[in-house]
């Protein structure tokens, strides 16, 4: 135990008069008592960065993380958008079916249409039936053939749109009934189109997940290299921490805190940029509303606005990336420290 009086007499010449008075006031007993009190868990610890916070490498890393997070969250957001849009398409498609009746020689098309419409209307599970008149059917072809062409001479098929009750229509029985009552009517329940659409949407979602995995892997590698670089740059600090009695776990946690802060900053910038990008795309679509391409985009992706699950996914990904950055650096630092004496 170091005696207070010894220290004081030895260093008397080093201290100023006011400092001398201070020590005389506090006294030896008080000093020793406080020295014995040293012992519980830290509180300044959280506020004291042992790894310097600002460095060129740190700024570059924040930029890399923000770009990677932007790409990752943009991919995830796009996947959610596609999934939502695919859900919307399938809802629209499954909410109605089409009956097509082609003109046949020797048969009255109007009578066939009326017969088929009446039979379908009476079929259980059908909510409503809309018969497209000859003019309406002709109008459907106008975008392709132009308004100058007379369609009266052409054998244009007639359409009946059937809206079924939810889950209440047996399609195969309807098809059998139609083949009896109107043999030339063809019922299209859009199943083929729906299956293709679903497959395409699923493929896009899987592709998005794959890209997301690639982006996160690339980011993990970037963090690993950055951590090694930071360790090389802070070798002196690590040595000092070792010499003053720091455990490897303590040092690696310091690195984890340091990189978690960088990760959180970069991920927040990236995640916020993605949310802003989706909001901007939705805004531009609204402004652009009525333009030639906007209708196609809107029919594919709705209003291009992310649903709540999409927003939550982006926020969760952002937080996960920050934790990922911190943990990767901790593991790398700890493993490296284990190899040092």
């Amino acid at each position, binding site marked *: *135990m*170091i*005696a207070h009086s*010894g*220290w*004081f*007499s*030895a*260093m008397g*010449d*080093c*201290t*100023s008069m006011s*400092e001398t008075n*201070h*020590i005389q006031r*506090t006294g030896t007993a008080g*000093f020793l008592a*406080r*020295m014995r*009190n*040293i*012992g*519980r*868990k*830290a*509180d*300044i*610890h959280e506020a*004291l*960065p*042992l790894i*310097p*916070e600002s460095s060129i490498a740190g700024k570059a890393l924040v930029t890399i993380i923000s770009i990677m997070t932007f790409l990752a969250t943009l991919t995830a957001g796009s996947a959610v958008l596609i999934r939502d849009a695919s859900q919307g398409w399938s809802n629209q498609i499954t909410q109605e079916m089409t009956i097509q009746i082609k003109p046949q020689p020797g048969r009255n098309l109007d009578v066939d249409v009326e017969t088929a419409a009446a039979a379908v209307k009476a079929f259980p599970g059908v909510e409503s039936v809309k018969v497209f008149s000859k003019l309406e059917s002709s109008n459907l072809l106008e975008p392709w053939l132009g308004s100058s062409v007379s369609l009266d001479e052409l054998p244009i098929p007639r359409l009946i749109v059937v809206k079924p009750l939810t889950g209440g229509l047996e399609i195969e029985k309807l098809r059998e009934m139609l083949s009896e009552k109107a043999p030339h009517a063809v019922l299209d329940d859009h199943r083929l189109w729906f299956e293709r659409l679903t497959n395409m949407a699923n493929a896009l979602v899987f592709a998005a997940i794959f890209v997301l995995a690639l982006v996160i892997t690339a980011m993990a590698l970037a963090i690993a290299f950055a951590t090694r670089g930071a360790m090389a740059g802070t070798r*002196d*600090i690590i*040595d*000092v*921490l*070792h*010499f*003053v*009695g*720091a*455990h*490897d776990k*303590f040092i690696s946690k310091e690195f984890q805190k340091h990189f978690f802060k960088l990760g959180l900053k970069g991920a927040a910038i990236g995640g916020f940029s993605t949310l802003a990008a989706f909001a901007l795309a939705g805004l531009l679509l609204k402004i652009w509303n009525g333009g030639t391409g906007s209708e196609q985009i809107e029919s594919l992706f709705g209003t291009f606005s992310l649903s709540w699950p999409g927003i939550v996914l982006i926020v969760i990904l952002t937080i996960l990336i920050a934790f990922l950055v911190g943990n990767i650096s901790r593991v790398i630092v700890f493993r490296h420290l*284990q190899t040092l*004496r």
Partner: protein
Amino acid sequence: MVRFENVGLRYGMATETLRDLTFSIEPRSFQFLTGPSGAGKTTLLRLILLSLRPTRGFISLFGRETSTLEKDDITAIRRRIGVVFQDFRLLDHLTTYQNVSLPLLVQGKEESSYRAEVQELLKWVGLGNHMDAYPPVLSGGEKQRVAIARALIMRPELLLADEPTGNVDPSMARRLLRLFVELHKSGTSVVIATHDLSLMDQFDSAQRLVLGDGRLHIYE
């Protein structure tokens, strides 16, 4: 406390930098480690501090043979040793106060439990007005005193000081030596590496360990 038996150290395939070192540092002892520049004083201190492994021989610290120590054991031993480096090794991004607190901080001690002690120690070494200063703005002598305060704050059983008066004027060197002597009287073993003969003459009763040609000569 510290025991070396036939310890040798070589870097790579070169000839041995240190050879056949056999000595011991007893509890409550005081010794100067001296020799010409490049004789291996700092290397010997690093061997005691376990930052270098000997290529041969036996080293025991606080009763434990060092070649079989685990990392946690090494950390535990280092916590019993205070060290003042020749180049101070202060962390430039921490204040004087934070640098001195570092050994306590890394042990997870509560800041409120040591704040007063760190402040008092800094006042004792004449840095009461520089607690919030960062090392780059301190003079060489002030940095030296911060390094000494950091080594003392844990009240080590063994103090290793590498040229602790190398950056201060003769007057401050005498004061610092008095501090080490007082520390020794209070029970700490002190090893001061220096080639300052006038400093050693001020404390004649200290054991002198003289390094030359890689070998150690002991003068009581």
